[in-house]
């Protein structure tokens, strides 16, 4: 499978996430769209890692070139899990204060 197909697919998913962040006002949906963008990037990292590994395997059999990208994906998932827990706590706090999950109320966080 040519790498371009993977790039096009991941770009489409990423752009859908961007459109969601720009068009929705529900803070939870905006958060979910950010997760969607993170996943598109993860898939592209894995595709590139397999591309480099395939090129390296033709020169040296048994090579592990490209394994760093998969470790990166693992760490992106770790950071995303931590980010979601804190972000949802902030959204719950906002809902308790304003009884709404509208992102336009998020500028009241500073008070």
């Amino acid at each position, binding site marked *: 499978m040519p790498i371009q197909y993977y790039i096009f697919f991941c770009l489409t998913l990423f752009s859908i996430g961007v459109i969601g962040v720009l068009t929705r006002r529900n803070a939870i949906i905006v958060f979910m769209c950010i997760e969607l963008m993170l996943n598109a990037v993860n898939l592209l990292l894995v595709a590139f890692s*397999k591309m480099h590994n395939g090129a390296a395997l033709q020169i040296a059999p048994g090579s592990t070139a490209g394994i760093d990208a998969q470790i990166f994906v693992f760490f992106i998932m770790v950071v995303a899990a931590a980010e979601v827990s804190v972000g949802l706590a902030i959204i719950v706090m906002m809902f308790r204060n304003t009884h709404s999950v509208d992102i336009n109320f998020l500028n009241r966080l500073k008070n």
Partner: protein
Amino acid sequence: MDTLEILFYALSAFAIVSAIMVLVSKNPIHSVLWLILVFFAISGHYIILNAQFLAIVNIIVYAGAIMVLFLFVIMLMNVQSDKEPQKKLLIKFIGVLSGGSLLILLIALVKQTAQLEGKQVLMKEGTIGLIHPLGKALFNDYVLPFEISSVLFLSAMVGAVIIGKK
């Protein structure tokens, strides 16, 4: 067209349709369920790339833990879908327009990149996605970031508890 290509196109179409449904659904719970389907499609992509460890971690962490957290929060808040404030139609149109322009721009950029011509992704073969080489790399070269990520988790946990208690 062999099986891998059919699988690639089917999973991609499934993921894109589900991702669009995440944006279109009015009810936030339906959005969460559609997003879980997107994550399953992406896990299928990992499997046909032979990244088995990431496929399982994606299902456990994303579809299992994170999405359940989202569902809990939505059910806790009891958000009515008809009361959700909507952006103005003009703003929505501008948002879709700018997102679409970003997509077209990036696709045009990739299409004229000469370095990517003829590069193939190794599918269904290769051992780097298996748990043995990944574990070796994680605990030899990346052991310090691994330990630091545990500190990150601890701080996130403390932060979530403190924010939630207020």
